[in-house]
């Protein structure tokens, strides 16, 4: 019984933290989509058309899914989308690091000198992916 309530608290805290991270990251990008487009373009993965679409859509996807996760509505759907996003973030950051790109992550700031790509960013994204995975699994129960 105690175990179950501890698990519930853990689930709630994790949900709030992950939702907060995505809402914050999304709002920062929504405030300045043009700068975020430059950041996405710096990864040199997508053609400019898809860079523009990503810069417009991705921040809102983060915010909307973050809000759904926060409120607990459509949990499985929102956590599955966030799981997919965090998987893409891991791949993008790791590939930029492997290619030796000296660029800003564009994760939580889109202006100024920002946070540079590096192993710590990859670890951060892997942890976010793991947290999303746990939330998705728990949303199916």
């Amino acid at each position, binding site marked *: 019984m105690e175990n179950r309530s501890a698990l519930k608290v853990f689930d709630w805290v994790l949900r709030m933290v992950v939702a907060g991270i995505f809402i914050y990251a999304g709002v920062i990008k929504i405030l*300045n989509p043009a*700068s*975020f487009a430059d950041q996405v373009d710096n990864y040199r993965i997508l053609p400019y058309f898809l860079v*523009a679409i990503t810069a*417009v859509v991705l921040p809102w996807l983060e915010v909307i899914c973050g809000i759904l996760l926060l409120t607990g509505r459509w949990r499985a*759907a929102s956590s599955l989308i966030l799981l997919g996003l965090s998987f893409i973030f891991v791949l993008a950051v790791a590939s930029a690091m492997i290619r030796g790109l000296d660029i800003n992550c564009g994760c939580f700031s889109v202006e100024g000198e920002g946070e540079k790509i590096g192993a710590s960013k990859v670890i951060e994204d892997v942890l976010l992916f793991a947290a999303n995975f746990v939330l998705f699994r728990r949303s199916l129960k």
Partner: protein
Amino acid sequence: MKKNSSEIGKQILIILFLTFLVSFCVNFIHPRGVTISFQKPPLQFVSDSVFAETLPQVSIGGEETQEVTVISYEQLIRLLKEKEIQLIDARSKEGYLEGHIPGAINIPYEQYFDYEEQISNFPEDKWLVCYCDGPPCELGAQMAEELKLRDFKKVAVYRGGINDWKQHASLAVSEGSENGK
């Protein structure tokens, strides 16, 4: 009980549809919205003919600012040749020491309040040209905005920054400090 996967799929489709709808509507009216095109839009510079005249407003960080001029590499070179310029590197000290445009002094935007004395001694008859790394770095533009608020009239931003400079001028960068010259 396991949730129905088709129900989750339906919810995902609704979320994606709503996201696309909201994001494109907001982008349409956003002052710093993204231009949806197949080609990356080029950096916008003022033309030489309006360089010293009344200049258009430029948008920095989502706000209309007071007539900060954006100049191109060619315009920068012209100012350098005419020696009518004080270059200001708005990046961190580390970035500046690694390499900067010859003649530039370093005023890191994030610590500009430590350089009050130096800023107040800037020549008013010369163009104060600020720069940083180049897009998406906005430190040069923010520094220029700050100088404009301090009533310096001839303030410009070299938006291409050190990255654009290196592309044009190959290895013509200075290392070490030129502050105090």
